[in-house]
């Protein structure tokens, strides 16, 4: 038994268990799980917990008051993604809980460990359509890894212990605990036991030696092997194991949006980004390689393009923790189930050392073509207007790959993901699976709290910023020193791009008439500057990075720039367009 009360007992005073309220038990249980920061918003049915928090606030747990529960959920996600710990969000019943849902859905698709605690009406009122009663268990069921309704105080510690275990083990995901108000008030004998297993749940299947053998044989005879890195590598903390595998075999590797930063950008075997707006080589070579080694990734349709014409020529080896992902989208030749942290070293041991110089050369050729056609114009533009790409290039020059990048969704997300450079893992916080606009600003708050010693740069569009702009209030109140880079093209840029390419430039509801963002920041006492001219860009970035507190740098970029390359929806990755 490893509990706070137990520690006290060891000191020779307190009894074995302690009679406390359910709400105090919630806080003590969170402390037992090592929680230092929670993100939330109070309301009637969670008030007892906030009252308990009042007592523990300064000593043990920091509570960050968001300005909207969606913001609290995204902040918890940002925190979890950079720190590897479980993010915690707290909300009241009814609207508080439903406001969390977008963040929870986002966390499920992006495998982010969250524990969300919501207050619920008193148990006698359940099912009576009481004030602020919603069936949060029902609503969140399809978007959580697990959820539970707790109606008795004595069930709280075990529910929280189980929630943390499920959220972070195996393929991580969001978990929700709905706790009735009477359970928060009731007194009981508290004692905490960490959860280390659940009978019906196997977090990670065992790695089968025979599969390793089969995969090694295929890899050893491959002429054009190609590795795809997913977030599974980061979630499994298998970055070193990945490098060892790649460096021994000399296999070129590309990454998914969420696998970004698992391998340093400048690593010689890093050939770039996969997917709809990924790099040219990784896309076309997916359909030319002879062996595809997918490591902790799930063949999202944004990565595969038309899946019927995806990598049909290749033998597919899939290293994956979640059996339901195997053969879901792409048929595998060999599936190595299990945690990549375990399977990668076993595979590395069995594969022969190799170099694939000619094959690497093909990627280099593609990179040169892409540089000439796309990258050069993105990051060293000759036209008058500023481009998103050159802003990212300039930031790279200053942060030298050390910063955490947070993005919102849209063109700015793709450009930032393409051009931002990373030396360290867990440097990317972006909404991949759900593509949630409004994610960026609150996620950056969480990221900064999860990695206080790192520079956190949030790249956000003018549309997305306005979806959660009220979180500037959180940044202000809690003095969270995030650097916000607003790339303002006065359009819902990514949608406008599709309208230009596929809807005859009929810009239906995509132009934005924007407020004075710098003035809004100023109203929250957040310093900022607007850059409209290239000659001021570098100095403005310096000012931002040298500024102690939070900062908003708005850059007026070209209105109608497009993100290329692009694999148009429904096309094969081979049909990637460079213009």
């Amino acid at each position, binding site marked *: 038994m490893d509990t706070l009360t137990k520690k006290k007992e060891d000191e020779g005073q307190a009894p074995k268990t302690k009679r406390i309220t359910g709400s105090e038990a919630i806080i003590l249980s969170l402390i037992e799980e090592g929680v230092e920061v929670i993100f939330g918003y109070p309301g009637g049915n969670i008030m007892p917990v906030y009252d308990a928090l009042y007592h523990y606030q300064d000593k043990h747990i920091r509570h960050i008051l968001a300005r909207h529960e969606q913001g609290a959920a995204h902040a918890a996600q940002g925190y979890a993604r950079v720190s590897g710990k479980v993010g915690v969000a707290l909300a009241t019943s009814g609207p508080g809980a439903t406001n969390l849902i977008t963040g929870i859905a986002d966390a499920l698709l992006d495998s982010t460990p969250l524990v969300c605690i919501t207050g619920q009406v008193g148990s006698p009122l359940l099912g009576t359509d009481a004030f602020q009663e919603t069936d949060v*268990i*029902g609503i969140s*069921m*399809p978007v959580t*890894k*697990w959820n539970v*309704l707790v109606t008795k105080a004595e069930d709280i510690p075990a529910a929280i212990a189980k929630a943390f275990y*499920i959220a972070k083990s195996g393929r991580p995901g969001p978990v929700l605990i709905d706790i009735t108000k009477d359970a928060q008030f009731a007194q009981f004998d508290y004692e905490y036991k960490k959860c280390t297993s*659940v*009978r*019906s*749940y*196997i977090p990670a299947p065992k790695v089968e030696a025979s599969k390793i053998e089969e995969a090694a044989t295929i890899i050893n005879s491959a002429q054009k092997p190609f590795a795809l890195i997913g977030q599974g590598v980061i979630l499994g903390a298998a970055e070193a194991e990945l490098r060892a595998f790649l460096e021994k075999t000399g296999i070129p590797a590309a990454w998914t949006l969420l696998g970004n930063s698992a391998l340093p950008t400048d690593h010689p075997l890093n050939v770039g980004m996969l997917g709809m707006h990924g790099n040219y080589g990784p896309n076309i070579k997916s359909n030319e390689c002879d062996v595809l080694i997918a490591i902790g990734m799930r063949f999202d349709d944004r990565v595969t393009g038309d899946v019927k014409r995806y990598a049909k020529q290749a033998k597919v080896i899939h290293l994956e923790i*979640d*059996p*339901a992902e*195997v*053969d*879901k989208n792409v048929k595998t030749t060999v599936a190595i189930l299990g945690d990549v942290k375990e399977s990668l070293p076993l595979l590395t041991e069995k594969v022969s050392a190799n170099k694939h110089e000619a094959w690497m050369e093909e990627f280099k050729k593609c990179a040169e073509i892409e540089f000439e056609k796309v990258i050069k114009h993105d990051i060293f533009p000759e036209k008058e207007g500023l481009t998103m790409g050159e802003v990212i290039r300039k930031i790279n020059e200053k942060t030298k790959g050390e910063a955490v990048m947070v993005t919102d969704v849209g063109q700015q997300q793709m450009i930032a993901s393409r051009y931002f450079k990373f030396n360290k893992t867990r440097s990317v916080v972006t909404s991949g699976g759900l593509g949630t606009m409004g994610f960026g600003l609150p996620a950056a708050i969480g990221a900064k709290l999860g990695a206080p010693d790192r520079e956190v740069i949030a790249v956000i569009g003018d549309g997305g910023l306005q979806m959660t702009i009220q979180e500037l209030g959180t940044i202000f109140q809690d003095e969270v020193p995030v650097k916000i880079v607003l790339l303002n093209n006065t359009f819902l840029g990514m949608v406008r791009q599709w309208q230009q390419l596929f809807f005859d430039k009929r810009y239906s509801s995509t132009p934005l008439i924007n407020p004075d963002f710098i003035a809004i920041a100023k109203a929250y006492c957040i310093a900022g500057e607007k850059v409209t001219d290239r000659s001021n860009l570098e100095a403005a970035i310096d000012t931002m990075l040298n500024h102690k507190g939070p900062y908003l740098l708005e850059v007026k970029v070209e209105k109608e720039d497009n993100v290329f390359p692009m694999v148009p929806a429904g096309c094969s990755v081979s049909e990637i367009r460079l213009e």
Partner: protein
Amino acid sequence: MEQEYFITAFSENSIGLLNRITIIFTRRQVNIESLNVSQSSIHGIHKFTIVVNTTREKVEKVTKQIEKLVEVLKAFYHTSEEVIQQEIAVYKVKTEALMNSKEIENLVRNSGARILEITPDYTVIEKTGYKSETQELFDKLDQYGVTQFTRSGTVAVTKNPKELLTEYLKEVGWKA
């Protein structure tokens, strides 16, 4: 090719699990033909028997998604050749109809059905068998007017000698 599949899921007996399972089908637009939940032969473990008409690919994916649920220990799918299955049907007819025609009595006898209750007003008949058999009896009885009819979900056991879960339980070191 679509065909009949029997999905068997072994689970904890927890509130809401049925909902978790059915939304997996709803989302993928797979219709549940029949559903039964009961105890399994292993103490404390419940068993879902779900019948669907779908393709092998779909049933495989759905089964994996079911097994992924935290409260589900293991899920399997089988074709109708691999299981022994039965359904139970109860039929209510007017006793008057029974009295007026010798046919009903013959139907009951020849189809291996039995009479559960006779009152002056109504008679309740029960038959166990394949769906096609209980349906056939319905069609015949209905000529005389069936006033109420209910068919249960399919219950099925596999042709395996043991409960499919035993291996799993051994693996995770769980003793009943």
